[in-house]
Structure formats: C-alpha cells, structure tokens
C-alpha cells in the first residue's frame, strides 16, 4: 500500500477526504491549525471540491457545520481546545438533534501549553458534558483511521463524533497508508423535520432521552471496538492508557525489559466498560497512564475494588508526559531501576520575538512614548501581540481569551479611575471583539482600544480573515467600529509615529471609548 509521511493534523484531513467529506469549517488555532491550512490548500488547488471556510470564530464554524449536516452533507468542524468553549453553546444541542449528514468534530488539546495561553484545558471533560462520543488517536495513522471510523459511527448513529488529539499527536509525523479519495457531490438538501431540528421544550427532554439511548447503544459498540485493544501476557500488574501516552508506555517497557498487559483505550467516551472490567479482573496493581485530569482513573476506581491503583499519585496532572516520566512510573511499580543522568545548565530563556520589521514594534514603541507605564493598565489579547508580555516590551497586565481584552477593559474602567489601553488584533476583533466593543458603548466606559490591523491572522500561519486585503469583498473594520457607535476613531499607519503618539495621548483622556486602528500589514502579507 502507498504510504506518505503525514503530520497528525494532515492525517485527519486525509481521513476526512477518504471518507468523502463535503463541508469543512474551522477557525485556526495551534495545535489544530494545519487541519485548516491543509484543506485551504486542497480547496484552492481544486483537489477538495466541497465547501471549505475559515469561519470567523468556532461558534459560527460549528453552526455552519450543523446547517451542512442538516442539509445532508458529510461535515468536518476543526478547532483547538479553546474553540470548543466558544462553540459549546452550539455543540451541546447538536447532540440532542443529532446529525443528518455524518459529522466529525476534530479538537486538539495542548498539554504543557506550547502554543496556548489561558489554560491547560482537557477537552475530554466535554465528552461527558455534551455526551459526545470521543475517539483518541495516538499517532498519525490512527488520526486517519479514527477520523474514518468517526464518520462511519456518525453515519450509523446519527450523532456527531469528536476526535480528540493533543500537540504530540497533531504534530507527530509517520508514514501513513494512503487510500483513494471518492468523488463527492457538493449540494445537499434541507428536508423539513421539525421534530428533529427544533430543540423546544417539552420535545427537548425527549431528545435528551433519545441521546442517552444512543450513548447506551454506542457503549456496546465501544466494548467490541478494535480501537480498544489489549496486548501482552497475563500478569497481576496491568496498565491502562490512551492517546500519545500509549506510545510512551510501549517505549518504556522496551527500555525496562518488562512485558505487562496493556489496554489501549481508543474509545474514550462512552468507555468500553465491559472490556475494562475483563481486562482488570484479577489484577493486583493497575497503572493508569493518561495526561492531564484523571478521567480514566476515576472510571477505573469505580469499577475496581480490589486492586491497588496508581495514576495521579505517580504521574503529574499538569504538563504533558514524556517517555522518561512514564518509564520512571512503570519502573516504580515493577521495582526496577531507572536512573537518569542529568546535568544542570544555566542558559537564559530565549523568549519568542516579534519578527524583524513587524509593525507591532512601532505600536508598542509609540505607546511607551505616549503614556506613563506606571499609571497605565495594558490589556492583552490572543495573537502575536501577546509578545507584549516579554522583554523588551513588558506591557501586558492581563491576558485571557479571544476578544476578552475589551470586555475586561470595560469592567476595569467601570471599577477604577485608571488609564487603560487594550490591544486586539484584526482576526481576534472579528472573532469575539465586536460584541465587547458594542458593550463599552452601550454601557458607557472609556478604554482606549488599539486594533492592531496587520491584515491577516498571523500567529497561526497567516490565514485570511474578512478584513484581509487578499479577501475579496473584505469588510472594513472602521465601518464596524463606526456602526458600533464609536465617535473617537482614527486609522493610523504606526510608521507615522508623531501622529500615532499624539492620538494616543489625546484619546486616552476622552470620556467615551476610543479606537485607533493601527493599520500596517504583517511582513508576510507585504511579501505577498
């Protein structure tokens, strides 16, 4: 069979293509970004003939996916873990209505926060909250296979399925078997079905019961599914693991020259409980190797009364695992020696930097010249400009989630008399900044908002957004800002430092909210 080296994210794309996906929506976010950029490229090269879009945020991406599924199209919606929070309002009822066109939700978590601020979220919590069947691949081959399996499960049970990866799965490469991609139709049809698509009470409670019944049926499938598999000879000490941790377990056993029974759980929700029960029957010691919060461990503690259970008492709940962390844990429970020889080093941290020539250098420089750093509060948001946090800038006093710089600024301005400037990028403004801006006008507060309009969604790999000059029928940010009722508005190229500094000084004393659109393209846009 033909094999190609693929990144986990590319393998998800390949799996969706081989399944005949017809509608793809996503919002870029690392570690999931390459799902979008790969589809974008395939779409531009006309290798993917269905609909592809970079949506404005994950909520509308999900809603678009719901509409496509209701119209009978095979649908993929992809995002990073925080996107799942944004779209959860649309996701949860989608489980109630169920799907018409099979639908897969691909979500990438980021243990150790390599490319994520705000929190080290474990999206497996949503499996329970939304009752969404969840598959957890360990490597790119499984990314492809599980995506295909997810589409077929969705087709059979009329329910969206989540494929959940982590950074070390999404950004892992290996040779992946390539199969043929079917021809697809691109037009579906929406057939009125009020009983299914309208979540009004009292019907909504019936829907919940139907959902729980589906999950019950799927748990029987999970119990016999080949993606949960046991290996190794009989032993009183057993290991249960999932995701990338499985690979570390296998590596660790090779290293320690031990061969313990391992149950690899590919079906995280609903859990294959009968299979688990059989596997741990008679075990004296059970080691559960899973990253982040101990969901598997909790389930196993519930069904096992006799065995000694090792999990988060041996392995960290914060940060990703590595082969040596897992090796040390296994060595401990089998009483083997595994000692690392480590040398301490003292090299200063090399902070990521704004690219040479990045227009944000000009913005941060001007802000520092215009205002006293001591008496001004600086709000941060999600984008390359988070680097405001690091030296030599060091102007970021709070950082939360997409668009929050403005919402939090409003709260601070309502609660204190201090000066406040917030930074928000063009992509983030479109994503979730607009409602917060309207709120500052409606509820009357006066932060100074600097919209860093570099004409692209830069940090995640230069995806287009509605304001980008490469986007036909682009939407002008200034028109939105004006329509929100903002009176103090200026559009300035920050290369004009004098005007920029003067405007910051002037606007920071206004009684109403002020907006400066600092418009200068990202150096990567300029190159295009």
């Amino acid at each position, binding site marked *: 069979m033909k*094999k190609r*080296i693929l990144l986990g994210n590319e393998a998800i794309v390949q799996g969706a293509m081989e399944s005949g996906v017809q509608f793809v929506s996503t919002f870029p976010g*690392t*570690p999931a*970004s*390459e799902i979008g950029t790969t589809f974008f490229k395939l779409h531009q090269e006309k290798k993917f003939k269905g609909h592809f879009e970079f949506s404005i945020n994950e909520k509308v991406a999900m809603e678009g996916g719901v509409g496509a599924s209701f119209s009978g199209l095979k649908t993929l919606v992809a995002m990073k873990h925080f996107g799942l929070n944004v779209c959860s309002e649309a996701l949860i009822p989608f489980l109630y209505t169920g799907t018409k066109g099979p639908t897969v939700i691909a979500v990438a978590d980021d243990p150790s926060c*390599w*490319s994520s601020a705000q929190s080290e979220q474990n999206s497996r919590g949503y499996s329970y909250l939304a009752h969404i069947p969840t598959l957890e691949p360990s*490597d790119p081959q499984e990314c492809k296979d599980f995506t295909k399996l997810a589409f077929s499960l969705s087709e059979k049970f009329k329910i969206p399925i989540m494929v959940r990866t982590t*950074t*070390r799965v999404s*950004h*892992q*490469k*290996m*040779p992946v078997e390539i199969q043929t991609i079917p021809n697809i139709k691109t037009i579906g049809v929406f057939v009125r079905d009020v009983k299914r698509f309208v979540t009004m009470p009292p019907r909504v409670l019936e829907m919940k019961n139907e959902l729980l019944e589906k999950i019950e049926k799927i748990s029987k499938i999970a119990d016999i599914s080949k993606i949960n598999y046991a290996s190794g000879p009989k032993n009183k000490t057993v290991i249960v693991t999932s995701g*990338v941790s*499985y*690979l*570390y377990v*296998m*590596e*660790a056993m*090779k*290293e320690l020259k031990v061969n313990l029974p391992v149950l690899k759980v590919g079906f995280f929700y609903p859990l294959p409980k009968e299979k688990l029960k059989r596997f741990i029957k008679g075990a004296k010691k059970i080691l559960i190797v899973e990253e982040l919060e101990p969901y598997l461990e909790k389930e196993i503690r519930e069904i096992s009364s006799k065995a000694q259970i090792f999990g988060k008492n041996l392995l960290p709940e914060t940060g990703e695992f*590595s*082969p*040596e962390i897992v*090796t040390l844990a296994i060595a401990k429970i089998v009483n083997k020696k595994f000692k*690392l*020889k*480590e*040398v301490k*080093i003292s*090299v*200063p*941290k*090399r*902070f*990521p*930097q*704004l*690219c040479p020539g990045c227009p944000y250098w000009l913005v941060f420089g001007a802000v520092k010249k215009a205002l006293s750093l001591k008496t001004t509060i600086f709000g941060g948001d999600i984008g*390359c400009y*988070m*680097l405001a946090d690091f*030296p*030599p800038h060091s102007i970021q006093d709070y950082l939360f989630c997409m668009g929050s710089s403005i919402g939090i600024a409003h709260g601070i301005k309502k609660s204190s008399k201090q000066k406040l400037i917030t930074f928000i990028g063009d992509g983030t403004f479109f994503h979730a900044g607009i409602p917060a801006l309207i709120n500052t006008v409606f509820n009357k507060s006066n932060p100074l908002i600097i919209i860093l309009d570099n004409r692209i969604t830069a*940090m*995640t*790999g230069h995806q287009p957004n509605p304001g980008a000059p490469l986007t036909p029928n682009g939407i002008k940010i200034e028109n939105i800002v004006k329509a929100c009722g903002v009176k103090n508005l200026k559009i300035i190229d920050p290369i004009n430092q004098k005007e920029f500094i003067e405007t910051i000084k002037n606007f920071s004393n206004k009684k109403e909210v002020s907006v400066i659109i600092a418009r200068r393209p990202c150096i990567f846009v300029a190159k295009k």
Partner: protein
Amino acid sequence: MNKNFNIVITGTGGQGLITLLKIISEAVILEGYDIKTSELHGLSQRGGSVEVHIRFGKKIYSPLVTKNKADLIIGLEMQEILRAINFANSKTIFLINQHIIPIPLEKPVPQKQIIKKLEMQSKNILLIPASQICQQEFGKSVTAGIYLLSFASFKGIIPLKPQSMLSAIKKIIPKKYFEQNKKTFELAEENGKKK
C-alpha cells in the same frame, strides 16, 4: 542497523529545523525504516528556542526521544544545544554549528563553558563552523543545517546514505533553491574527506 536511532535537533525559530526534519524523514523512508518525529508550531517558533525529535529503526513507538537515549544531538546554535544536554549519554555525538545567535539583553554563554558542560554527558563533540563555511563559500549561511546534515551522512555519524540524503533534499527543498543546497551537500563531501 539493529538498534533504533534517536536524533534531537536544537536551534532557534527560523533556522529551518522543520526542513531538516522533513529531509531526514524522506531519507529514512528511502532506506525502508519505520520513523516517528515530533515538532512544535505556532508562537513557539517566533525566534524562540526550538527542538525537534526524529527516531527511526525497525519499529518506533514514541515520537519523543527518551532522556539519555539520543544517539545524535545536532545544535544549529551553540547555546541552544545546552538545552538538549540531558538527552545525551556518554556515547552520544554532539554535532554543533559553531555559531552564536545572541539572546536579546543577555551575554552569550562562552564556548569554553558550553563545551565543558556538554563533556559532562559526552566527550564526542564535533564543532563545525557551518554557518561561517556557507557564508564564505556562498555569501549566505542559510544552508548551514544542510551542511551539517550532509557532513553527518558522509562521516557515517547518521546511519543514512549520502545518496538518500541528496534525494531527500531534492524532494523537500523548493526547486529554485535546490542548486544552492546541492552545492552545500558537495562542499560537505569535500570537506569531510579532508579531515
């Protein structure tokens, strides 16, 4: 090759680590081994420290190298290699580009001090001024990584044939830059013979 081969490459964002990873991966496939790699994307790339892992052999599970288990650690920048020091054991080869990219607002760690530290794990240290050689020869240092990789292949430091490496370079590097890379490859061959 009986044993799996573990490589860690360190450097800074923009030095082309992911390109090197792709080239090694293609060469590995040409020689019929199993392979797993790990890389990081996003904000971590913007000029910060970067580390990629490549493992190949008969059957590979983990994409990450276990500490003390690297066979080869390549440093595209002298200070950055220190961050990977604990992937080494006493047999590990450190292949280092003798090149410093200053850390903003910090004094560079002196070369002597770097070598002394590395020697605490392994004495097999190869210091090669790849950036300087490429700069002198071609007027730009962008192919320093290719130079190191080619050199490693000619010297048998990495168990992949030079021919596979060149084919992989041809496959991965965009056409318009291939000649430059091929010349770098040939220069590494020539210099490899001298020593």
